């Protein structure tokens, strides 16, 4: 059986796994991190979206061995201690979820977007979450949550820069 060693949210996990193990199964069953969800299991719905070495991937359509010696970021890695990340907080405030099943995947895609585009347009936001399916919200509230997060992160940056100029 192949041996895998990967870092998930900064913590090292090592295991002997069946070669068929999907990355999603490794995350959920071996690491016990059940925030990433299995929706379609064929790489369509995006509920299993995680980051692999900084790029979003669908964990249900990747062999776990592809993550060997790599770093994975899951939804559990977004919040710090008891504090939601600004993006999570904005989803909460803007009612960007209803049943919540797709939310972890949307948050990872949105996180990736905001890491690469500080001021996304609504069209860019919709394009960024094109690979995630939500059956409750009609997407509008999700777009609003991501837009609010982009604005909050931007004003946070401006405040920090203003403070630097002030000193």
């Amino acid at each position, binding site marked *: 059986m*192949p041996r895998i060693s990967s870092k998930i949210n900064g913590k090292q996990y090592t295991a002997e796994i*069946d*070669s*068929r193990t*999907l990355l999603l199964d490794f995350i959920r069953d071996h690491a016990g991190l059940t925030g990433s969800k299995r929706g379609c*299991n*064929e*790489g369509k719905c*995006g509920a299993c*979206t995680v980051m*692999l070495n900084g*790029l*979003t*991937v*669908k964990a249900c*359509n*990747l*062999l776990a*061995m*592809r993550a060997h010696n790599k770093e994975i970021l899951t939804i559990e890695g977004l919040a710090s201690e008891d504090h939601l990340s600004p993006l999570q907080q904005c989803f909460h405030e803007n009612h960007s979820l209803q049943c919540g099943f797709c939310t972890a995947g949307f948050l990872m*895609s949105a996180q*990736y977007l905001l890491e690469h585009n500080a001021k996304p347009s609504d069209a860019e936001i919709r*394009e*960024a979450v*094109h*690979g995630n399916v939500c059956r409750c919200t009609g997407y509008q509230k999700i777009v609003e949550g991501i837009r609010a997060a982009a604005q909050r992160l931007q004003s946070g940056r401006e405040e920090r820069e203003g403070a630097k100029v002030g000193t």
Partner: protein
Amino acid sequence: MRSFEYLRPTSLDEAVKLMAQHGGKARVLAGGQSLLNMMKLRIASPEYLVDLCELGELATVEVDSRRGLRIGAMGTYHRLQQSGLLTSAYGMVSDALEVIADEQVRHVGTLGGSCCQADPHGDTPNVVVALEAEMEAVGSKGRRRIPARKFFTGLLQTALSSEEILVNIYLPPQPPSTGSAYEKFAWRKGDYAIISAASLISLGSGGKCTRASMVIGSARPSPLVLEQAPNALVGKQVTAELIAKAADAAFEEVEPEADAIYGSSEYKKELVRTLAGRSLLSAWKRAQQGIN
């Protein structure tokens, strides 16, 4: 998914040896975005999976002065999009990349893998055929180059033998004032195409068309190279009216296969006309920019 032995060669030589050793029982794993789904459905059940992810030299994209753009078979769509090397002549590749699945899939999926998958409704076979790419393969008997037009041999079938590995795709250099474009129709963006069209136009002095080519995808099991329709343009001053005539000629030339999901041959024929026209207009616009 049926059980398989996972093999992870660290050199191309080792990969070639493994494929030669396990012959028809082994499959190469590139991005896996199609193959893994086929394995889950047990449409594919390889006994050995040879994962090429350690072969960094196969994941690069670079300009080769003699042979054009070299795209390593393990180069992801994302890497290709980020390369900045897709000029107006290769515009159809940029167009195709934008409408392949979604960002998460493009982070993993590869041009080489999808060509080897040879799905009749896939996007990449059409553009490599339209650009007359060369597909470079390696097997235990050595290295060979296969013209893209001879690479796709049928439904999910390619000219590769069961032990050969696709290593590079070369997009040949194009003359100045060449533009190309890809248009597809699908019910949702990122879905498999119902019909698609890849067009290329080269302009000479004074704006006369010196070369035109058109490939229609999803109409047949393999990309369909149009023999007649481009003749409506070659040697003539290109205008929007002339492009409409070429699109009509494409409509006359293509007899798409009907299917139970996406519709009749007549319906698809109209899509051929529309998409041929759109892709030619876009290719013409890019050729006029004159930046190769």
